[in-house]
C-alpha cells in the first residue's frame, strides 16, 4: 500500500483554479521534493493534504485512511513543518513540545527522551522554559521543527525545511530527514534550495500553474525554466 495517495485533486478559490487534477503517490520511506515557480501551487497542495484547504474534487489518503471519511485518524499519520513558525505566544517551548506529544499520544518517557535528543542537536536546550517572543526567528523555527519531529508518523510535510536555520541546524535536519525515511516515514517537502534537495530527495514533482508537469527520479532533474519564458 502506498503511504500517500493523491487522486485527481482539484482546488479552486472562487473562479480561479489553483490545482488541477493532481494525481500522484508517495511510497513508504520516499522523500519527494515539490518544486515549482512562485505561485505554482506547492503550498496549496501542502495545505490540501493537511486538510486546511478545501478541495473541489478528488481523494487523499495516507496508509489507506481517507481524509474525508476519517479525518481525525488521518491527522495522526501526518506531521507538518511550516515555512513560518506559528507558535503560541502563551506557551513556552517545552509546553509546545508537550502539546505535540499529547496530541500524537507519545508517552511521557518517550517525549522527554526525544526532547532531550532534539534540543541538544539543535542547541536550544537552555530555551525550554522561554516564550516564543523572547526567541530569535531562527530559534522559533527550530522549536517548530522539533515539534514536528517528535512523533513517528507515516508522512512528514515540510514547507521550506532549511529556511531560517543556521548551517549546523540545517545539516542536522538534513541528516534527521534521511534517518526518518530509513525508519519508514515518507516526506514531501517544498524548497527553492535545489542543491540541498538534490542531496536528499529520491524523486521530484514539478508543479506548474497548478498542474504536475513532471514526476521523476531526482537524478533526472535538470532545472526549472523561467516562468515568463513559457
Amino acid at each position, binding site marked *: 500500500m502506498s503511504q500517500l495517495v493523491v487522486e485527481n485533486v482539484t482546488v479552486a478559490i472562487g473562479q480561479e483554479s489553483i490545482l488541477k487534477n493532481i494525481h500522484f503517490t508517495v511510497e513508504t520511506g520516499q522523500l519527494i521534493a515539490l518544486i515549482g515557480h512562485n505561485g505554482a501551487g506547492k503550498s496549496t497542495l501542502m495545505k490540501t493534504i493537511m486538510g486546511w484547504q478545501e478541495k473541489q474534487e478528488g481523494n487523499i489518503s495516507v496508509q489507506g485512511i481517507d481524509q474525508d*471519511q476519517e479525518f*481525525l485518524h488521518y491527522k495522526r499519520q501526518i506531521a*507538518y513543518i511550516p515555512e513560518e513558525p*506559528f507558535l503560541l505566544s*502563551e506557551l513556552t517551548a517545552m*509546553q509546545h513540545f508537550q502539546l505535540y506529544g499529547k*496530541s500524537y*499520544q507519545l508517552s511521557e518517557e518517550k517525549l522527554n527522551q526525544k526532547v532531550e535528543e532534539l534540543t541538544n542537536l539543535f542547541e536550544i536546550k537552555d530555551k525550554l*522554559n522561554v*516564550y516564543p517572543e523572547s526567541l530569535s526567528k531562527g530559534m522559533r523555527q527550530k522549536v517548530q521543527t522539533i515539534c514536528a519531529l517528535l512523533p513517528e508518523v507515516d508522512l512528514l510535510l515540510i514547507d521550506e525545511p532549511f529556511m531560517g536555520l543556521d548551517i549546523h541546524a540545517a545539516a542536522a535536519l538534513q541528516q534527521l530527514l534521511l534517518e526518518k525515511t530509513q525508519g519508514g516515514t515518507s516526506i514531501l517537502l517544498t524548497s527553492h534550495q535545489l542543491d540541498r534537495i538534490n542531496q536528499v530527495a529520491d524523486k521530484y514533482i514539478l508543479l506548474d500553474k497548478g498542474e504536475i508537469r513532471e514526476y521523476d527520479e531526482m537524478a533526472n532533474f535538470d532545472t526549472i525554466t523561467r516562468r515568463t519564458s513559457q
Partner: protein
Amino acid sequence: MSQAWSVFLFLRKNRIKKKQKLYNLALGVAFDWTISIYVGFYIVVLMAMVYDAVSQFENWFYSIEQLADQWIPLMVVALMVRTIILSFHSPGISFSSADWKAATLPILRQYVWLFTYFEAILKTVIWSFGLFLLAFILTPLSTGFLLKCLMILILTNCLLLLPQWYLYQIEGKKKVIIFLLVTVMLAIIRFVYLFVLPFEGFLYSLLAIIFSFNLVIWNKRLEKINWQSVIEVVDTKIWSMFFIQKMSKTETKPVQKPILPALFRSAKEKLPFPYHHETMIYRKLWKINFRQEKAYFVQTLGVSIICLVLLSFRGDLVQGVSVAIAIFLFNKMSTSYFQAGFKDRLLHAIPWDMKAIKKAYLQRMTVFMGLIMVVLATLLVITEHLSIWVFLQLLLYGTSLYVLLELKLHITVKKMNDKWYTPTILEQLISPIIYILLISSFAYNLVSIFVIILLLYFFLPKKAI
C-alpha cells in the same frame, strides 16, 4: 528635506485616493440617490431635534460655563491620564509602513517622522474645530467659552502627542510604574493648588509640565523605537475603516498586545504541564482562545440573559419560550465557537484528541452555564416562588443546557471527522423534544419530570472517535 516632503505628499495623496475609492465602492453598495436624500434629510431633522432638546437645558449649560474655570484644568488632567493609557496601545503619531519604506529611500527618516508629527497636529486641530463647530451649532454655550475650551483642547492634545509616542516605546513594568507615578504627581499638584496655592495657577502648571516634558524628550524622539510594533499598530488603524468593513463583511483585527498578562506572567506559568493530566493543556488553549474572542462571547451571553430577563414577566408560555431561546442562542454560540477554535493554525496542524479537547471545552463553559443558571434560578424564584417544581424545573434547564451542548459538540465532532456524516434519528429528535419540554415546562410543571429521561440519555455511553 524638500524631497522628503514630496515623497510624503505623494504617499498621503495616494492613500486618500485609495480610501476614497473604497468608500465610493462601499457607498455604492449601501446607498442609492433616493436613500442618500432621505438620509441627508433625516440628519438635518435629527440635528434640529437635538438643538431643540439641548436648548431646554440652557440654564444647565449656563451653570457649566460659570464653573468652567474649575473643571477645565481637570479636563487637562483627564487628557494626560488618557495619553498614558493610550500609550499602552497606540503610538499616537501615524508612522505607517509606507512611511517606513519611504525612509529607506535616500531620505532621512527624521524628516518623514517630522511630517507625520505635523500631520498628527493638523488632525488634532481639525477634529477639535469640528467639535467646536458642533458645540457652537447645537448648544447654547457662549462663543467665548467655546473658544477658550478649543484653545486649551488643541494646545493640550498637541503637546501630548510626543509624550504618547515616547511612552509607547517603553515596554513592560516600567510603563505601569510611570503611570502610577504620574497619577500620584497629578494628585499632589491638585492638592497643592486646592489648599495651598491659588487655584488659577493649576492649569498653567499642568501645561508647563507637559511643555517641559516635550522639551526633554524632543531629542530622544527617534531613539530606541520599536518600529515594527509602531508600523503594525498604525497600519491596522489606518486601514480599519468601519463602514468598509461592514459593507464588505471583512475585518482588520487590531494587533493584540496582551500587556498586563505578559507583565505579570508568573514563573509557575512557564513550568511544563503535568503531562499525565488529561485536559490541562487543552484547557489552557481554550483559555487563550476565550481571551481573544471575549467580546463576541460577552455579546452573545449578554443577549441570552437579556432575552431571559425581558420575557420572564409576560406569562408562562412566553417565559418558557424565553428559556428555550436563551438556551438555543447559548448552544449555537458555543458550538460555532468550538468549531472556530480549530481554525488556529497551530491547533489545526496537530492531531485532535477530541475526547480531551471536548472535555476541556465543557469544563471551561461550565462558568458560563453557571451564570445562565443563576439568572434562571433568580427569575424562577421571583416568578414562581420556591417549590419542589421549581427545583425540578431548574434541574431540567441545567440538564438540558448541558445535554444540548454536549449533543451539538458530539455531532460537530462527527462531522469534522466524516465530511458526509448525517446525524442519527435519535440525535435529530433529541433537540426539538428538549425545546418543547422547555417551552411547556412553565405552563405544565409535570413536564419537568422528563428530566429523568434526559439524565438517562446523558449517561448513555457514546462511542468516542
